[in-house]
C-alpha cells in the first residue's frame, strides 16, 4: 500500500495535536476526523488491517481534506501529512473504492487534451493569454494535477503525457504557468523546459506603478506551502502599486478555500462555501480592500458564493494596470 511509504508520518501525526488549529476544514467542521491526527489515526487503522480501507466514513474524511499543506508548513519536523492523504487516496482508487462522484469527475478529467496555438519561443498555459504578447499558448484542461490529487495516478500520467507532448511539439523552452496547482505539478516534470510562474514572469518584465490601493494578497496553498513561498506574487503587486495589508489572524492558516485539493468546490460545494464564508467573515472590517489571488479557481470559488466580493487574480491586476 502507498501509505506504507508514509509510516513516519502516520507514527508522528497519529498522536500529535500540534497543528490541528491550522486545518482549514477542521476549522469549519470542528470534527476530529478533519485534523492531521484524525486522518493519521484512520491511516494507522488501515495499516493494521487493510479491510479498513473500505470504510466509507474514512474515505469521505480523506476526500474532504482540503490538502492545504498548512500543517506541514507549520510542523517543526516537516512531516508530509498532505503526502499521506495523497497516498491513501491512491490506495482507495487502486482498490476501486473511490466515491462515485470522485470517479465520475476523474472520468471527465481523463478526457483532457491539449493543443498549442500561435508561435513563439515561450509558451503560456493559463486563462489570460492576451497578456502574453509574442507567446504561443497551450490550451486544454488540467495537465494531470487534479487526477493526481484525487488518487488517479495512472490516469494522471496519461493526461500529463499528452500535455508534455504538446509542449515538446511546440519547441518552446520556456513555459509560463498561471494556476498555482498546475505550476506546482509541472515545475520539475519537463526536462529541458524552464517552467516559471506568471508572477515571476511579470516581475522580470518590470511593471509600471499605476496608482496606489490597499489590497490583500490571499496566499496560495501551492506557492506558499509546497513551492518554497516565492516572493514574486507580492513583489508583483508592489510593483503595480498595491499596498498589501495583512489578512486573517495569522500567517500560517490557509485561506485559499480548497485550492490545495484542486477540485474541492466541485466535490464538496457546501464545505467550500463554508471555507469562503470564513474568508468573507474575516474580510469584514477591512473596508474596500481588494483581494488578489494567484489562482483563478480560488477567485471563481470566492465569487461563486458572494458575487459582490472584490477579488481578482494576479493576472487581472496586471491587465488592469494596462487598461
Amino acid at each position, binding site marked *: 500500500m502507498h501509505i506504507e511509504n508514509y509510516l513516519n508520518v502516520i507514527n508522528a501525526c497519529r498522536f500529535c*495535536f500540534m497543528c490541528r*488549529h491550522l486545518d482549514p476544514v477542521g476549522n469549519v467542521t*470542528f*470534527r*476530529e476526523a478533519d485534523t492531521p491526527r484524525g486522518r493519521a489515526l484512520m491511516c494507522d487503522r488501515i495499516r493494521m488491517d487493510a479491510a479498513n480501507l473500505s470504510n466509507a466514513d474514512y474515505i*469521505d474524511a480523506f476526500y474532504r481534506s482540503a490538502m492545504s499543506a498548512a500543517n506541514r508548513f507549520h510542523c*517543526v*519536523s516537516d512531516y508530509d501529512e498532505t503526502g499521506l492523504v495523497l497516498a491513501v487516496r491512491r490506495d482507495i482508487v487502486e482498490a476501486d473504492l473511490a466515491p462515485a462522484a470522485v470517479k465520475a469527475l476523474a472520468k471527465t478529467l481523463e478526457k483532457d487534451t491539449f493543443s498549442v496555438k500561435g508561435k513563439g519561443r515561450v509558451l503560456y498555459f493559463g486563462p489570460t493569454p492576451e497578456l502574453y504578447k509574442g507567446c504561443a499558448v497551450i490550451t486544454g484542461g488540467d495537465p494531470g494535477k487534479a487526477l493526481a490529487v484525487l488518487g488517479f495516478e495512472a490516469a494522471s500520467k496519461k493526461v500529463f503525457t499528452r500535455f508534455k507532448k504538446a509542449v515538446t511539439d511546440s519547441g518552446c523552452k520556456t513555459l509560463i504557468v498561471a494556476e498555482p496547482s498546475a505550476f506546482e505539478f509541472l515545475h520539475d516534470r519537463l526536462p529541458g523546459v524552464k517552467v516559471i510562474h506568471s508572477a515571476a514572469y511579470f516581475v522580470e518584465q518590470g511593471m509600471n506603478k499605476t496608482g496606489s490601493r490597499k489590497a490583500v494578497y490571499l496566499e496560495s496553498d501551492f506557492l506558499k506551502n509546497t513551492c518554497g513561498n516565492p516572493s514574486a506574487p507580492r513583489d508583483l503587486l508592489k510593483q503595480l502599486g498595491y499596498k498589501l495589508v495583512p489578512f486573517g489572524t495569522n500567517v500560517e492558516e490557509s485561506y485559499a478555500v480548497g485550492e490545495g485539493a484542486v477540485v474541492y468546490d466541485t466535490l464538496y460545494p457546501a464545505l467550500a462555501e463554508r471555507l469562503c464564508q470564513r474568508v468573507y467573515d474575516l474580510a469584514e472590517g477591512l473596508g474596500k480592500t481588494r483581494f488578489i489571488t494567484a489562482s483563478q479557481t480560488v477567485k471563481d470559488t470566492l465569487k461563486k458564493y458572494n458575487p459582490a466580493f472584490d477579488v481578482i487574480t494576479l493576472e487581472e491586476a496586471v491587465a488592469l494596470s494596462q487598461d
Partner: protein
Amino acid sequence: MTPKNYLYEMIRSELTWVVGDEHVQANEADNLGHSIDYYWVPECWHDRGERPTPPDLVVYPGNTQEVAAILKIANTHKIPVTPWGGGSGSQGGALPVYGGIVLDMKRMNKVIEIDPVTMCVTAEAGINAQHLEWEVEKAGFSTMHLPASISCATLGGFIAHRGTGVLSTKYGKIEDMIMSLEVVTPTGEIINTLPVPRHASGPSLTELFLGSEGTLGVVTKAVMKIHPIPAARKFHAYLFETMHDAMVAGSQLMISRMRPAVIRLYDEASTARIIKRVLNIDRKGAYLVFGFDGPEKIVDLEMEEACKICEKTSKEDLGTEAGQSWWKNRYKFFYPPYMFQLPQAFGTLDTVATFANIENVYWAMKNVVKENFPQAAFIGHFSHWYDWGCMLYARFIIDEPPKDPNEAVALYNRIWDMAIRAAIREGGVINEHHGVGLKLGRIMRDLYGPAFNVLESLKKVLDPNNIMNPGKMGFPGKGV
C-alpha cells in the same frame, strides 16, 4: 446506548432537533478520533490494535442554550455526557469511557468582546487557545496564556484542567486569569458566576468550576484578563553543577520577590537528553533559564539582579542567546520526534510542592522509579514557579514496554501508583496543570483524605443522575 435500537434513534432525533442534523455525528471516522485523547493508555491500545470505547454520539452544540437542552435530554434518559475540547488532555478526562454523548465544544468558538477598558476578553469556551490568542493579539493585546498546547487545546479545556502557560510565574495559571464563567449545570441550568474574581460575597463559584473537568457542568463562556504586549521580553540561561544548586538560585529569585515571567530548570538527565537534542546545548550539569518582560528599563534592571543571584552558585553563564534560543524553541520540545512516542511508554508525573519539599518529592519519585522499575528512565524539569514553591514536570520513559497491551498498561499504572504516592508522602500535590481525569482518579482519596467527601457531596447535589463525565476525577462511574 446500543446503536440502532429504538431508544438510540429516538434520542438521536431529540438531539438532532436541538442542534441540527449535521451536528449529531455517529460515524466511525469521528468516533475513532474521539475514542483517543492524549492519554497514553488509549494511544497504547490503539497502537496494539485494540479499539478504545467510542462515543455513541458526538454532538456539537452551537450555543449555550443548545448545551442546556442537550444536558436536559441526557438527564431524562440518564445518558453519560463527556465534554470534549481539543482532546489534548493527558489524563483521559475527555474519553467517553461509558459511551454515551461526547459533547464536542469546538463549534462554540467565538470571541464575543474585547474590552480594552477593563482589559478582558469574553469568549466561548470551545475556542482553540491559539485562535483566541491570535484574535486578542490582533486587537493589540495578549492573553499571556501560552502553554505548549496552545494550538491543541480549547479555553474550556484549560479551565477544566486548571491549565498553565509558559509565562505563569508572572501572569498566573488559568485560574488567575479568569474573571468569571458561564456554566451549564448538569441538570441544564445556565448560571453565571460573579463578574469579578475578588469579592467577599461567599465562596467563589468560579473556583468551584475551575478544575472540575466536566464533572460538575459544562463551561460555555469565560471572561478572561488580557494584557498589553510588553515592550521587552528578555531571557538568560545558566548552567549549574547540580540540580540542587540551580534550585537554590531559582528559589532565591522567587523568595526575593522578583517577578520573572518564566523560570525553567532542567535536571542533569534532561539537560543531557532534552536540552542537548532540542537546543543543541551540550553540557553536563543543570540548565536554568529565566525571562522577564515589561518596560525595557525595568526588564534590564530585573535581569541584572537575577543574574547576580545566579552567578553566586552557577558553573557557567550560558548567556542571553542560550536563553533566547529556549524561548524560540519552547514548543519544539512537544513535536515529534522530539516528544516521546509510542511504542515507548511515558508519563508526566506532574507534581507541585513548596520549596521546602520539592527536592524531596523529586528524589522520592526518582528513587521509587529507579529501585522498582530498572527498565524506566527518569528525567525532570521544574516548570512553573510561585513565591512559595514550584512544579516538577517529571517523566518516566520505558523504551521497550511489554508487547501485550494489558501488561504494558498494568506496568504503566504501577509506576504511577508508586511514584505519585511517594510524592504525596513528601508533601507533593498531584498536580499542577494536567488534572486528574481517569488516570489519577483512584488517588484522589489518598490526596484529599476526608475532604474528598465534600467534593463528592457537591457532585451528588449538582449532578443527581451522575451524567457528567462519570468515572473521572475520582467520582463514581456509571450509575448513581
